[in-house]
């Protein structure tokens, strides 16, 4: 019984407004980030390189080309997937279009560590033929090495 107001037991209520605000912001953040990640980065096991001379990934104005470890050459760029014998030509057409729209664009080649070189080189060649000189080869640090 509240001794001050004599109106019954004092009610303790937490003000959850700010808490809910922050939680919603977190949810919106994760929704956006999850969509971007799944759309651009295919689930690949990237090559782990020891004693690497790598640089942080430049994230502005780049096209991510995923080279999938399949029997036939398969490349994915965002929601576009090119597979088969003409995959490199189709990829080249897309990269040419991207280079026309943004001349200083870069290409990030994400290739699975088990992908054959015969599938990865055409992706780099397609970038060169599209007039894109700056290419990033994406790797990861080995386990326990940062």
């Amino acid at each position: 019984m509240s001794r001050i107001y004599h109106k019954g037991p004092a009610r303790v209520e937490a003000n959850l407004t700010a808490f809910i605000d922050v939680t919603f912001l977190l949810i919106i953040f994760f929704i956006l980030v999850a969509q971007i990640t799944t759309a651009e980065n295919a689930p690949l096991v990237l090559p782990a390189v020891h004693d690497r001379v790598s640089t942080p990934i430049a994230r502005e104005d780049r096209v991510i080309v995923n080279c999938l470890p399949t029997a036939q050459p398969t490349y994915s760029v965002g929601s576009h997937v090119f597979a088969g014998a003409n995959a490199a030509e189709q990829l080249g057409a897309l990269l040419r279009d991207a280079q026309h729209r943004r001349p200083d664009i870069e290409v990030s080649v994400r290739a699975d560590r088990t992908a054959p070189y015969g599938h990865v080189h055409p992706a780099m060649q397609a970038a060169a033929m599209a007039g894109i000189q700056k290419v990033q080869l994406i790797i990861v640090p080995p386990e326990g090495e940062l």
Partner: protein
Amino acid sequence: MPMPTQQPEQAGPSAASEEPIHHVPIRRKRAVPRPVTNLNLTAMIDVVFLLLLYFLLVTNFAKDEEALRVDLPDPLAPAAVVDPFVIEDLPVVVTVTSVGNGPGDYRIHVDQPAVGSVGSFADLCSTVQAGRFDRGGYLYGDEQVFLIRAASETRWEHTIGTFNALVRAGFAHVHFLPPTEADP
């Protein structure tokens, strides 16, 4: 405890024409319970937390990824003027071959008798680095061009490991040759 009686407001001469102020004693005011509007947020917070947990678990951050930079040649650029009195260094071809499915199952061969086969990426790096003029070697200058040759079936992790070793040795002109059909 006696409650102080509310004093009537001091009304000016201009307020005489307005509506009269009804005096309501405080005891009577407190007696009337004020309606309280509470929104029950429990279910919403439950759902919000479930969503938050879902996205925390599902989101895959690519934060560990790094890049090895390659400057590709411009196929449309005009051919450079060659000075006939300059003896250019021949490019050095480094052949990498996959001999298994493991990260260490590879062979590297440098097409120079002074170097030949090397056992690992680290050996390749240290060997070509020791051949640099500025390191007391007699094989390579700063502008030495290295060409990486690999078969179509060579694993990408072996090819990019070779590239990293040559760049780590301090050479800026490292290029990839088109894949060969069979293991070279």
